[in-house]
Every structure is written in structure tokens, then in C-alpha cells.
């Protein structure tokens, strides 16, 4: 250093730099406090995945087909009880009801300049919403649906082993019967986070989700218990349910032998039945259900 030590001009840092250190310390403390919540909540599976609702090539509405028309899930996803993968229905399944009214452009055998009519029976034969379906039918090219529920490749989820053990579609997919098609074909959305922690929760206590085998595809079964019903009634008001629906629910829950003790909570009612079902389905022990090889290979 060429400068004299006593020369004030030798100071390298300006005076305000004296405040820098406390500021830095404050910033560090603040950062230390704010970063974990950001990482923990901001990057959690719930934040990232729940509510994912991609645009689909066809504005298909489960709300109409399942909710209003009452189609069973198995009508289209018919391999769900036989394979790991719940197959997306082939175009041919759609065509069963929605046969196109016209042959594709270019087929003009009667020479009137417009595509020929098929004379097939079909619902919404000429709807532009079904254009992609009809195209796929004529070309044989698949409709490329966007995957909504996407697990990590090293997790080997098997639909058939759950569906054959009384785990309802609802448990993972939620009220699909209420998922309509909106905004350019956004249809199904992800209801649960489908993370390992979420899976394990149920594998630790499957009784919380088990239901009779014939109720697996029932979207409203989880409300079937009298207790559940009472609570829902209180919470949502009677007007949400038609008298027929109420009656049906009541009868159904009696038929199923769902516990209906006075004042029993939703969770308790489900668990009581779940434990019985768990026994009759020979669901394995907690250790087996959580063994790595159960889901990973």
C-alpha cells in the first residue's frame, strides 16, 4: 500500500458500509426463515400437481357421461380390473354411440361436392367437438390424450390389484363424475397429490378407503353411510339432494350393513367397515403393504 495509514483517503469502503454487516446478518436470518417454507410448500406435490388440468384433444366431459348419463367407469376403462393400466378406451368405443354422420372430406361418391353421408346412427354425429374422434376412426391414428395422473416411472402402480380389493376409483381420482369439459377441452384434473407419502398413508391404513367390491366404481359411495349422510345434510343443506336420492342412499347403506350408530363420525363409520373388509379381502399386514417391493421393481 502506497497510502499513509493515517490518510483518510486510504479508506476503501465508504462510511455507509458500516451498516452493511447488520443488514447482511438480517438478510441471512430472513432468508433462512423464508427459504424452507418456500421449498417445502412451493415445491410440494400438492402445490405442483393437485389441480393439474391439461387441455385434451377432445373436450370430453365425464360430468355428462358419468354424472348425468350414469355410465359406469368400466364401460370405457374396461381393462382396469385385469391390468396394471386402466386402458384409455379405443376410438371404436366412442364410435359405438358417436358414429360420424359423414365420411371424411374427399369421399364423394355421389358427386355432389360435399362429403357423403354415412347413414349410421349416432349421437352428435356432426358435432365439431367430435371431429378428432371421427378423424381417428377414419384414419386409424390414435387420439393423443394428455396424461393427467402421472406417476414416477419407478413406481409400479397396478390398477387391477386395487380395484379387485375394494379401493374405489374415487379414492385416487376424486369425483370424476363432476369433471366437465371447460376452456378448450380441459377435462379431468388431478385431485390428490399422488406422492409416495400420500400412497403410503393409505397403505398404512387401508381400512380408511376399502369398500365392497360392487361399489368400487360408485362415485358417491363414500357418502353412503347414514352418519356421513347426516353430516353432509347438515353441511350442504337438504336441497342438494333429491328426495329419491336421499331415499336411495339410506336404503343402500342399510343393505350394505354400513354401521349407522347414532352420532358416529364419517371416519369412524368408514373405518369400522374397512376393518371388516380388510379381513375378508385378506389385505396384508402393514409391513407387507409398505415393503419396497410392493411398488418398486
Amino acid at each position, binding site marked *: 500500500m502506497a497510502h499513509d495509514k493515517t490518510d483518510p483517503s486510504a479508506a476503501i469502503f465508504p462510511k455507509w458500509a458500516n451498516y452493511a454487516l447488520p443488514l447482511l446478518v438480517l438478510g441471512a436470518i430472513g432468508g433462512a426463515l423464508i427459504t424452507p417454507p418456500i421449498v417445502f410448500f412451493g415445491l410440494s406435490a400438492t402445490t405442483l400437481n393437485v389441480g393439474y388440468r391439461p387441455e385434451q384433444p377432445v373436450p370430453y366431459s365425464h360430468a355428462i357421461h358419468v354424472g348425468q348419463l350414469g355410465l359406469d367407469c368400466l364401460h370405457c376403462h374396461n381393462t382396469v380390473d385385469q391390468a396394471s393400466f386402466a386402458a384409455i378406451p379405443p376410438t*371404436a368405443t366412442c364410435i359405438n354411440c358417436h358414429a360420424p354422420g359423414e365420411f371424411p372430406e374427399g369421399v364423394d361418391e355421389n358427386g355432389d361436392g360435399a362429403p357423403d353421408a354415412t347413414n349410421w346412427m349416432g349421437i352428435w354425429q356432426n358435432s365439431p367437438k367430435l371431429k378428432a374422434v371421427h378423424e381417428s376412426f377414419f384414419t386409424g391414428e390414435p*387420439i393423443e390424450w394428455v396424461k393427467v395422473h402421472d406417476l414416477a416411472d419407478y413406481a409400479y402402480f397396478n390398477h387391477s390389484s386395487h380395484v379387485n380389493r375394494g379401493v374405489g376409483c374415487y379414492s385416487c381420482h376424486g369425483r370424476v363424475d363432476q369433471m366437465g369439459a371447460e376452456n378448450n377441452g380441459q377435462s379431468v384434473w388431478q385431485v390428490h397429490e399422488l406422492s409416495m407419502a400420500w400412497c403410503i398413508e393409505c397403505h398404512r391404513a387401508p381400512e380408511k378407503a376399502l369398500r365392497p367390491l360392487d361399489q368400487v366404481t360408485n362415485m358417491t359411495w363414500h357418502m353412503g353411510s347414514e352418519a356421513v349422510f347426516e353430516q353432509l345434510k347438515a353441511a350442504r343443506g337438504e336441497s342438494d339432494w333429491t328426495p329419491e336420492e336421499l331415499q336411495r342412499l339410506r336404503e343402500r347403506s342399510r343393505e350394505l350393513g354400513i354401521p349407522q350408530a347414532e352420532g358416529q363420525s364419517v371416519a369412524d363409520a368408514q373405518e369400522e367397515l374397512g376393518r371388516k373388509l380388510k379381513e375378508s379381502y385378506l389385505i396384508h399386514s402393514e409391513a407387507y403393504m409398505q415393503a419396497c*417391493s410392493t411398488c418398486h*421393481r
Partner: protein
Amino acid sequence: MIDRTLEPDSLSPEATPESPESPESPEAAPAALVSPSEGAPVPVSDAMGAAPSSDADTTAGRRYWRSILHQADPERFEKKVDDEFSGYDPDGLLTMPRRQFLRFAAASLALAGVTLSGCRRWPREVMAPYANRPEGHIPGTIEQYASMLPFAGFAMPCVVEAFDGRPIKIEGNARHPWALGTTNQFLQAATLELYDPDRLVPVLHQGELAHDGASHADDAHADAHGGGHGGHGDDDTPSPTQARLAGAGWSAPAGGWKAFDHWAHDHFESLRGPASRGLYVLAEPMPGPTAERLKARLKERYPQMTWAEWAPFNRDAERAGLADAFGAPMRPVYQLAEAKVIATFDADPLAGQPDSPRLAKDWAEGRRRADSRRVDGDDVMSRTYAVEPSLTLTGAKADHRLAKPASQIGPLVAAVAAGVGVPGADFQATGEDNDKAAKFIQALVDDLKKAGPSGVVIAGPNQPAEVHALCGAINATLGAVGTTVAYLPDGDADTPGLGDQLQSLAEDLNAGRVETLVLLGGNPAFDAPAELDLPSLLGKAGHVLRMSAYFDETARLSGWRLPMAHPLECWGDGYAYDGTATLQQPLILPLGQGRSPIELLAQLADGKPADGLDLVKQTHKRSGLPGNAGFEKDWRTALHEGFVQGSSPELATPALRSGYRPPSPGLPVDTDLAQGRFEASFRPGPLYDGRYANNGWLQEVPDPLTKVSWANPVLLAPSDAQAMGVSYGDFVTVQVGSRPVTAPAYVIPGQAPGTVILRPGHGRRAAGRVGGDDNAFAGGEGVTVGVDLYPLRTRDGLGFVEAQVSKAGGSMELPLTADHHLLDKEAVADWAVKKRVGKQGESGKILKEAALADYARDTSFVTGGLHGDVTLQLYEPPLKEKWEANAKAMRAAGHPNPPDAFNEPHAWGMTIDLTTCIGCNACVIACQAENNIPVVGERGVKMSREMHWLRIDTYYKPAVDKESGKPDWDDAHVDVAHMPVMCVHCENAPCEQVCPVAATVHDTEGLNTMVYNRCIGTRYCSNNCPYKVRRFNYFDWHSKPVHAGWAKPWLDFPDTQIGSEIGPVERMAMNPDVTVRMRGVMEKCTYCVQRISRAKIQAKNEWAQTQHGSRTGEGRDQPTVRDGEAQTACQTSCPTGAIVFGNLNDPTSKVFRSQQDNPRAYSLLAELNSRPRTKHLALIRNPSPKLSKDKPEAAGH
């Protein structure tokens, strides 16, 4: 790894019970081969252990070694045990420069940032369902179709497993009357070949093409750049060589096949009638009903044409010899199951032949009779004799072996013929060590005579016709024809041998008589006899059409190169070894432009392209199918089964031709070590004749005898090697005639002095990116794998030939796996025993074996070595009470000995029978195919990084010189043992106790599971595994080019492939049910957990559906897996059935019975109390009482 500082004494030689008896003098033994060592020979095991009844072998000190290298320098091997991770220097961090350290630290942080990107929504994925799903097809499930794969001119029946339309695994066809569910390693590797991007070269034409002006010069140009990054198939452009092709005048016609169709239509039209004289076809033998029908049609259309066939490893001698003995060409069909005495002469019936899988299966039946523990009677174990120049897998399993040069085997066969009373045979064995050979022959003759119809002799393809005739005569004289061997008429007596056919074609080529030459399959420019010089003769043909799977050596010399579809891509048929018409159905559309050979034949005959399915159906419509449901239905039945029921011709039992006189055996090759004169024998190598060169699985799997991968060294006898001063990897020059070839040498125990074994097939110049390509690709130099030995093969020396052998100077490091993954007995097992039992304790043997007679008397050799309380638990398992309750319930239900831990609800276990394991490698490849195991390349293997979950350890036990007490590697009587070792799924698993992140833990059924996603790659588990069965992913091997250099361009990271992906075609070969492991994680055998899960889920679903009443079809009363429903890949691929897997909770299961009822069952390294779920069954040999006493004398020759 056990900390050795705790017990410094335990490892010193003084404390080792097996310390050397006498000091070693370097010059007295072949130990001097490598580097003479003063160190103690530390045995892997000794055979009989403490068994009181064991024979003289124990006192003579015979030991098992991994190789000659092991015995010569045991210290080096022991260091290998310590140095488990080759090239890893834990102290390297301390000496690293500060800046380098900071660089690594920064890069690690950056990578951590990259991994944080995992915390986001997955990338958008689409699902493409069928537009119209085929009936009965369930997406996402495995489907099986019966088909076949051609091998060595025969149909190999198989069942192909397909996942969503992608064939991913080959299994045996259990219903096929010949195959009975057996496969070999070549079949198992077929899926890799199917998805080999190098195969997908389009239709190419060399020179100007009249019809097609527009060539794909642009494509070729694009490829020149695309090839720059050299990824193994990471680009869509199929050919690695197209840029060079364009330069060499090759072009891909715009219309592909259409251009050829157009040209062929006109060209072949002009060949009708007398012009057909100029038409020649050279095909590899691929007989089948359709091919033969089309061949006849071709001859009809072109009456003057010539059809020739060539295969480098063929059965010419056998055909000719049996024609001499029986009056017509014959093919022997051996039936070894009932055979009591089997003698092979230079033959390897258990491996490498098209009939091998079935023969191995039958042979194993006879060996399994050891468990009757009888030395006489109907159910006595079979005895095998082998006379051969060098070890074969059959010789390795033989009870008695005589090493003789191939040319000296004829006289011995004649002596056997004389001994068993073949009329007119009166030959006596002569020779320098007459005594030893005579004793051997005498014992063999006595046994054969005693066995009579249950004896059989087998001659190998290298032996001349006379030897085959003699063997036929011996079998006929024994009365064996009809019991242990039957014969099938094999073609016309007038049809010349393949060698003659090729020779006359070569003459016609030379004379310029060949106008149009169609080269169908095979690779004659590479593997034809050298003196014919076929490559240059091909230039003399007018037009050369070449149909081949790869753009190979022959294709490069042709005018048209037509892509041949893979057998899994096209329709066809063939004959199985027993003549059964076997159908080939495609499981996938051709990935490239391939067409099938039968389609090409039909096109040549008719002038227009044909449809393979039509051709095959027409054939069978004409010949008729069994059944009476109408052709379509019968056809579907046949297709479903994979073969035409009852189509195998009647097996003949010919009598010896009247007037047959045994020929006098030819003169032996006069070998002379001093003058470097050797006898060279040719054998198919690990790549068969070279056709599988571009198959990384087959390249990398260590040869079961040499344990060498990615190379084909020349095999030398130990004494010759010592005399020449040649060691492993030293170059030797082998010269036949005027053609020398320099290749690395390998010294193999038990080879006859004066012989050299050549296994051609390597050294390909146009195989592809894996198997070798002499042209530059990947922006670098060409790649050669191994040495081309075909230049040494001549028309007269296809089997064996005189050769000059000399040391060439220089050497290379062979990719030798004999010293990889060494069982840690010395360090760990002895230590454990000493800790527990004290200094006097002796650990058990790794390999347990006994002679049949000893086994019949006493089974204590299996448990004899064990001391102490080995059931002591290290810790209380967490679910002990639950499992004890399970075991109690099982006991109450009549289970004699249920597993007392990890038994909920199944308890998986495995048994490996060392008596029937022949070391054929089928299981290794099957495991690789099933479990997405990567190929690491030659360089990786040299660093001990091969990833095979299942390895086959080979041990050699040489005879011991009585005077010096030294192993005599030269002697024929070397015992060989193959021991498959994969994760044994210890109940007390040492790996689990050291994993810091619980990435390897047990499940409730006894599987030691490996959680890839948790693994952080400390490798502690592998270090602590006494069985050395864990494999670490140093790289993303799948996406790494096999031969790429490991450059360090970025921050000196030894890897350039961050973010690279597996190629789109190769990716299709992956089993979707098994995670593809990323680098940095450990992996190992999972007992095929994906197959277990599949079986469990199916069982439970069926049970639930039965309970619920929704099940159609057969109901199910238990939710547990039945025996045989869950089978591992190694189990289903094993031709001998040596591997049994199943549920130990089931008292009726095969695996429980084999572990419980079989006295041979033992746990590997049981003294560690690791409680393996896999047990091995001890090796039983059946030596003749007449010869076994001679062994010590024989050793001192």
C-alpha cells in the same frame, strides 16, 4: 468389508489352516507362466473337505483355482479381493489440488441444482390408445406368442414375450416336442439384435442405376454430421456408415424396395430358359417347408440355375460318415435321458450345437439320478467320458477326460470300436503315453459294453467322416440305435457337402460363368475358406444381390444390398432338429425396410414381391395340416402351438450297412514344439460363426471356460505356453499355409500339448458399432473387437490343420473376468469362523463336491466343514412375533420345516444344482434381457465393471504332481466346476446393515430389495457383501456408446453424457416392468421381483374375483402363488433345469423339496450366518472305479 486391523493375525499365512506344505520352486511348475511367486497358494476351496470318506484327492492336495493365474500368483488375487473397486483411490481426495477440489464442489452444487428440477410437474406426456383395439388385447400386459428363431440351419422353437407389441423376451416353447422349453444364449440375445440400430440400413445400390436418378445423397450427407456425436443409436438415421457409402458409390434408391422390384422384374425376366445358366444362389442353410417349396419353384423357373449353400460350421463330415456306415446320409438324434454311459470324441453336445439345449436337458436327467444315491442299477447316474483337444463345456462336465490332439482321436475311436466288437475293427491304441490312453479306453470300453443299449458315443463336427462312421458303427454294435440314439435321413446322398458346393461355386466364379449371384444370409466373404479368396472372386460376377441382416463384409462387395427382416419381424417356417415343421410368426412390423428371405425367393421366382404370410400358408395348405376343423382353424391351432403337430419324420433305426468295413484312421498331424509345429482346431466362439458380433450381450458375456469377454484369444496348452514363454495376452503368430495371423494367447488348463484352439468370429470389419467396423465412425477411428481367425481356415482344414505357432512379441490386456467379484472366503468367512469358533475352526467350502460312490455312502461332505452355532441371530427381526406365528400356523398345517422369518405370505427361495449346471451362459443373457442390464464395453470389463447380476464362477482343479505337490495344469484330468452366483437374498443380509440410507432392505417375503431411488451410491453394501453380487452403475451405460472413449471435457468430469438418453430404437428393448437404473446407483439380482409381482397380483385378483363371483373361468381358492407361477428368467432359460425357484412356505413346492429333501443342499458361506435363501446343491461326479484310483499316478506323467 471387515476391518482387518481388528484381527491382524487372522490373515497371516501362519494362521491359515491351508498354509503351503512345501516351498515353491519357480522353475518346477507352470506357475512360472506369469510371474513366479513365493506366496502361499491360497485355495478357493478344497473338494472333499473334512469328509472322512473322501478319496486320495484330499491328501494329494488338489485345490480349486479360478485360473492358472490364480494359482501362479495368489497374492495378486488376494489384492483383488481388497481392491474391489478397481481404480478407486479413496486417498485421492487428500492429494487433489485445491482448485480441482473447488471445481468438483462447484460442479456438484450445480448438479444438485439440476436435480432440484425434479421438484416440478412431470413433463407433459400423451397416451395413444388404439383406434380399434384388437379383441382380447389388454394394453399394458405381457403377451406370449409361439414362434421360432433360426440357428445353425435349424428352427429353434421359442415363445416370444411381447409388451404392447414390442417383443422383449424369448422363452422356450415347452409344448414343442423337440425343444421341450429349452433355449440357448443366442436365442436369449435375439431381442437385442432386433433393436440394433446398425441393422436398419435401407436398400442400397452400388453404381449407376438406370431407373433411379435421385439418390439419397442428402440423407447420406446429413448422416455424416449426425454421426459426429457417435451416440449408440441416439439418432434416427439408421446407418453409421452412409456418408462413407455415398463416397464409395453407394446410394439408397429413393423408392427403396420399389427400385429393386422394378430392376429385378426386368432382370430376372431375362434369365428365363437357357439364360438361367448364369444364375447362382449362395445361401446359408435355412431349410424349411416354405423355403424348400420356393427353392423347387425357382429351379422350375430357372432350370439351369445353381443353388449352393455354405456355413462355416457345418455337418458335412457327419453326413458323409453316417452315409458310409448306414448307406444313406443321416443326422443323429441323441436321446441322452436314458443313457448310462456317454462318450464324446472332440464333440460338445451340451453347448453350441443346434440340438444342444435339448441334449443338455436330457443329459441333466441322467445326472440328476445321482440323488438315487445308487452306484448300480436302473436309476444310476450317467457317466460321461470326453476325448478332446481342449476343454469344451461337455468335457468340463465329463467324469473322465482325455486330452488328445484332434488328429489323434480317430485311432482312439477305432480302438473303442475294436473293444466293443465292431466287426472288422482291430485297432489298438498306440502312442507315446499309450498306457494312460489305453487305460482310459479300456475303462470306457468296459463301461460301454456293460451299458450296451444305454451307452452312446458322439463324434464332433471337427472329426473326419471316418470317425463319424466309426461312432455310428459303435452305436449300432452296442444296440444303442433306437434307445439312446436314433437317426433321421438327412437329404440326398448325391447332394455334395457344403464345402464342395462352395468350392464349385468359386470355380464357376473364377471362370466367369456367374452372371447373377444371389447371396442369401450367412457371410461368405468373411467366413469362407481363405484360399478360395471369395471376396475378390465376387468381383467377377455380373450382378451380385445380397440379402443380409447387416451391411456386412459380403454386402459391401455386392451391387444390391437388400435388408433382411429379423425373424421376429417376418413370417417363415423351418425344421426343428427332429424335423418338426416349426412356424415363425412376426410380433412386430419390420423396424427398417427388411423383407424375409422367403419373400425374396418368391419374388425371384415370380418377378413380383410376395407376402410372407401367404407363402407360408400356401405351403401348409398344400402339405395339409393335422386336424379337421378346416384349414383356417387348423392353421390357427398350429400357429398357436408354434409347430405342426406330428410333422416330425419317423426316427430311423438303421442297421450297419452290410459290408461296412471300419476305415483305418488317418495319419495324425505331426506336432513338434521345437519347430513350432502345432495342430490347430477350429471351434465356434462366443459369437458362433461371427454373426452375433454386433450383439453386445453376447460380446460381453464371459466365455464360461476362459472367462474372457470382448476377445477371442488363441488357446494354448500350459506346457506349450511355458516352453514358448507366452503368457496371458501375449501375442502369438499362427500361420497356416502362407497366411499368418497374430492374436493374443490364452493359457487354458487341460489342453493337449501341441494343439492350439482357434475360435473365429471376432475381428469383424463390417459388423457395426459394437462388433467392429474398419471404417471411421463417431468421428474417430474404426473399431476392431478381437482377431479375425478365418484367414487360417482352409478348405481341407475346416476342422483341424497343421499350423506354425510362434511368439510374436508384445501383449495386450485381455478383458478377463476370472479375477473379478471374488468370493471373500479368505478374508471374511475364515475370519467369521475364527471369531466364533476359535483358531481351530475351519470354514465350509465354497464349492462342495463328491464322487457318486462317496455320496452314496455318506452325505457329510455337505455339512462337514461347518462348526459352531450358525443359527445365531445378529439382531431381532422387527416382525419376529408375526413370522413366528406364521411358521407355527404352517407347522400346524403339516409343513415340515417352514422358514421362520420373512415368510409373509410367501417365502421366496432358490436352489442351484451344481451337478447339472453346464455353465452355458443362457441364464446370464436371459437375466440381462429381463432386467435391462447394460453393456459396459471392453474397457469397462477390464476395470471389473461388468454389470451382470448373475455371474458364473468357473473353478479349475488340476491334478497334483505327487513328488513336488504342485498342481499340474497340463494334465487332462483337470476338474472344472461352474458355479452360478447371484444375490442369495440373505435373511441376515450384511449389505442392509451398512447402507446409510436404507436403500437396501428386506420385504416380508424374504427379498432383499434394492431401492434405486434411495441409493446414493456409497457402495458400502457391495463392499460388505461376501458374495460380491452387487453391481454399481458408474455411468448411464445404456446411453453410452460401447466403445466410446471416456473423455473429460467438462470440469474434468470423467463423463460427457449428462442429459443424454437411450436411443429410440434401443429403448424398445427395455422391459417396462423393470426400472432402468441411472448412474450412481447400486443394483443386483431381485429374484425377478417383477415376475413375482405379476404372479402375485394375478393370483390375488383371481382369488378376489372368485370370492366375488365375477370370475369367469377357473376359480381360485387361495390368494397365494402356486408353484411354478412365479419363475425367474434364469430359471426358465436354463436348459438343464439347474435353477429352481419358488415358495418355501409351500411344502409341496419344488424349491422347498430340493432344499429340504436333498442332502446336497448347502448355503454358500454358511458360517457367516447370513442365512441365504438361495442354496446350492453340491456337485456330484461319477468317476469310474477303474480310473479314479489312477488319478494320482496319472498326475505324475
